[in-house]
């Protein structure tokens, strides 16, 4: 029995050592990522899929789209910390600010298997004690299992893994629209708001102009509680400029679906945004 336990512990110890080495490899690789952008890049677009699909940074000189689908503000904050440190020339940040970021499952989304499996392996080397507590408190076994499963998968080596313009080829047809009007519940947003405020403070500290961007949607009032959204903006975030394009008139073939633009819509919207900013 003692021999069995010793042999098993030895085997598991060596296995654990190998796994630790792979963790260390991933950690070092991610921490070594160069977050520098070209010197002429002074505008950043960050957030989730609305911006990732909707802003074609090749049409906006001096900008970089580093948004990633489903990204919550915690991860955007960690990304921005690195980006602003490595790129002091950045003077403007456009941040996705949609009702999907304001309520609708914002906090619970941090703990869905899909979200965790995408974001934890990318960002865990940048976690501070606060982020570890956040995940450890409620999901330690799940987080541990997930990190072990993903440790050698898709190791990011450049910042483009953390976000890029991701154009869609799909085309929306509002005549086929099967959407249901969502019943809005305030499911908790403490985490997301906390990190949104951190983003605001970070940009203030770095002297960067932060602008909220509400991307074009199809009939947003049918999908989101806009009353809540605008009231929250007014009450808590009105010090930040909001560019509201949610009601921008667009044909169906500029949209991927109700919430996202496709590549044609991205072109149209980016050119419109550039024109508006120049005015």
């Amino acid at each position, binding site marked *: *029995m003692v*021999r*069995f336990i010793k*042999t*098993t512990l030895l*085997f598991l110890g*060596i*296995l654990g050592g*190998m*796994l630790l080495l*792979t963790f260390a490899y991933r950690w070092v690789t991610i921490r070594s990522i160069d977050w520098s952008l070209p010197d002429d890049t002074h505008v950043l677009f960050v957030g989730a899929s609305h911006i990732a699909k909707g802003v074609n940074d090749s049409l906006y000189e001096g900008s970089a789209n580093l948004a990633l689908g489903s990204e919550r503000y915690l991860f955007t904050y960690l990304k921005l910390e690195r980006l602003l440190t490595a790129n002091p020339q950045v003077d403007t940040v456009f941040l996705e600010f949609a009702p999907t970021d304001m309520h609708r499952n914002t906090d619970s989304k941090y703990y869905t*298997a899909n979200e965790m*499996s995408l974001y934890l392996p990318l960002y865990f080397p940048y976690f501070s004690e606060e982020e570890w507590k956040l995940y450890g408190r409620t999901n330690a*076994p*799940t987080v*541990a*299992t997930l990190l*072990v*499963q993903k*440790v*050698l*998968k898709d190791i990011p080596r450049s910042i483009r893994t953390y976000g890029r313009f991701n154009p869609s080829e799909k085309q929306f047809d509002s005549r086929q629209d099967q959407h249901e009007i969502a019943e809005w519940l305030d499911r908790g947003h403490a985490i997301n708001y906390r990190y949104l405020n951190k983003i605001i403070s970070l940009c203030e500290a770095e002297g960067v102009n932060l602008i909220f961007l509400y991307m074009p949607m199809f009939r947003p009032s049918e999908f989101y509680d806009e009353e809540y959204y605008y009231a929250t903006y007014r009450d808590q975030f009105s010090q930040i400029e909001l560019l509201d394009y949610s009601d921008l008139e667009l044909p169906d073939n500029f949209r991927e679906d109700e919430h996202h633009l496709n590549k044609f819509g991205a072109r149209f919207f980016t050119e419109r945004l550039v024109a508006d900013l120049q005015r």
Partner: protein
Amino acid sequence: MLFSSVEFAVFLPLVFLLYWYVANKNLKVQNLLIVVASYVFYGWWDWRFLSLIIFSTLVDYSIGLGLRGEADPRKRKLYLWTSILINLGFLGVFKYYNFFLDSFYSAAPGIRAVLGFNTLDIILPVGISFYTFQTLSYTIDVYRRQLEPTDDLISFAAFVSFFPQLVAGPIERATNLLPQFHRARTFDYGRAVDGLRQILWGLFKKVVIADNCAAFANDIFNNSADMNGSALVLGALFFSFQIYGDFSGYSDIAIGTARLFGFDLMRNFAYPYFSRDIAEFWRRWHISLSTWFRDYLYIPLGGSRGGTWMRIRNTFIIFIVSGFWHGANWTFIVWGALNAVFFLPLLLTKSNRRNLDTVAEDRALPTWSESARMLATFGITVFAWIFFRASSLGHAFAYIRDIFTPSLLQLPSLNNLKLAALTLLFVGVFLVIEWLGRRDEYAIERLALHRPRPLRWAFYYAIALSIFWFSGSEQDFIYFQF
């Protein structure tokens, strides 16, 4: 809790140490620990499930004691049928009530308004199909006087709830497992190491093979209308390896875990995809269930005795009931019937007991004839799996219809064809390992045994690391839904 979860990785060593270091001085205490650990394991899913298994345990324990003191054949039969009705009654309500009601209403639409019964919103308790059959085997064997009923409630409760095999088998016979709870267990180093090895292999089959195949099988079956013929064939293939890796992997983990505690469970899979005919396949696939149906249904119905029509009838009954056991859907019934159709020619020509040995037992490779027969058997099995996996009969027929189109000769219309090819490569490597180990209880039982320890451990580390690195997205064990 899943075998492949962090919770189980903590649970198992804890129970193991308590079992061998704290409870080992007293057999009753050891059995009680098994009961407590098993109830914790089972209750982890939903504590409400415990009431059912405890009730089932108490009912069959009492019936066993009742049978012991009863000589009157009519009263003995009454006891037996009480057990059968209660156990199958639970199964019927939790698993089949909605199916029967929906099917009845579909056949007679106007009757719904008259009867007014609605379908129930019931959770299917995990493992109910397994432990009800397990307890039934006890009462039937006691009734047949093949087993002395036990008056040790703790042992009986441990037999019913034994956590390694509680939720997805093997379905143990009381004659095999119950006596093991009455005997003192001594720790055996070789057996414990063998158990760990089998657990490792089971995890590989589940996490690397089954879960990775599942991703493709789910995508193809869920979007079959948009797939071309070759993609649909791939979908059926992926599902075939998903269900094999999943179910046989779980059985390996169950058997290996039981070995750690000094128990021997029955073998449940014996390389079924190397079968040379469908009869051999059914001797090698889910052995605990097929032998259960053979001993408790087929033989009492007359088995292969009697005329041709009786044999045909009994064969169809067995396969259809077996299909129905898997789930409350016509697809499972058709799957069972299809296997009966495949089996019948062998039975009627008395060729169903031909291939009793292991294929190429004394050779490295199969003959061309053996290879052809294995491929043919595998082919019809894969065809039948389409019904097993499809969401409805309409889905299954559409799936099959869409295979046999000119698009069968095109490249599969999958998003990630490279990943699919890589997964198939893994499956190929897996099949080679299974082939090399086909004479053993599980593929890696003796594969590296006579090599020096560094080489042996390197082999085990390769398997262990591939479990971590190539694991697919976590999927529930398929058979949990049964």
